[in-house]
């Protein structure tokens, strides 16, 4: 099955693109997506404890099971608003 993976902020710079399509086994989870990018871009490994995840635009955990056509996003700590 195929999922769409989106990258934002510093992650987009690291991956070098805003999104890509990933081919995964049936019953793959968000953790499998993370595994893929960790091995491709080692720097992502140390960022994991601060990253959040979403599936189809809702916050989600690494255990979430994916379906064909799902939209997964890797989200660095957010920084909207202005002042601290």
């Amino acid at each position, binding site marked *: 099955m195929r999922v769409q993976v*989106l990258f*934002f*902020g*510093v992650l987009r*710079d690291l991956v070098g693109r805003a999104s890509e399509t990933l081919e995964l086994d049936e019953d793959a*989870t968000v*953790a499998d997506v*993370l595994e893929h990018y960790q091995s491709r871009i080692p720097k992502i490994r140390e*960022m*994991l*404890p*601060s*990253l*959040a*995840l*979403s599936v189809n*635009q*809702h*916050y*989600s*955990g*690494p*255990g*979430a*099971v994916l379906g064909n056509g799902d939209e997964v*996003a*890797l*989200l*660095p*700590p*957010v*920084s*909207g*608003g*202005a*002042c601290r």
Partner: protein
Amino acid sequence: MMRATIVREPIDTQPVLARIKQPEDGAAIVFEGVVRNNARGRQTLYLDYEAYEPMALQQMAQLAAQALEQYKVRDVAIVHRLGRLEIGETSVLIVVASAHRGAGYDASRWLIDTLKRTVPIWKKEYFVDGAVWADGEPFPEEITRAQGSPSPRVASK
């Protein structure tokens, strides 16, 4: 009328405030987040805001609904701007209308505090000598992280 909006033009507070005020309100509280000319001691030139737009909009609408329920305020409006912002420009506007001011202040403060930690928007800060993505605030407890948060499926591996 939408309670949450994302725009790319300068935010104009007056019409949002005028639209939201009703005869039963006794207080309107406006928060404007403004682009500062400095960050951690360095002089800022301008900022770029980007968002995971559909999710950000959903999150903002959800915050608005939660504020109405938790704080018993009558109405709220949340506007965030994206793209390039110059010093002094408003990046986020929060307007709360309420019969009583205490609830209004509490709701306003909760909204900006929570928005800054949960709404998927990121800013890149441009300085004379380069640009960096701002360190975001850590996600709150309720949001599971990619690693380190308890998650049944991963734990059973």
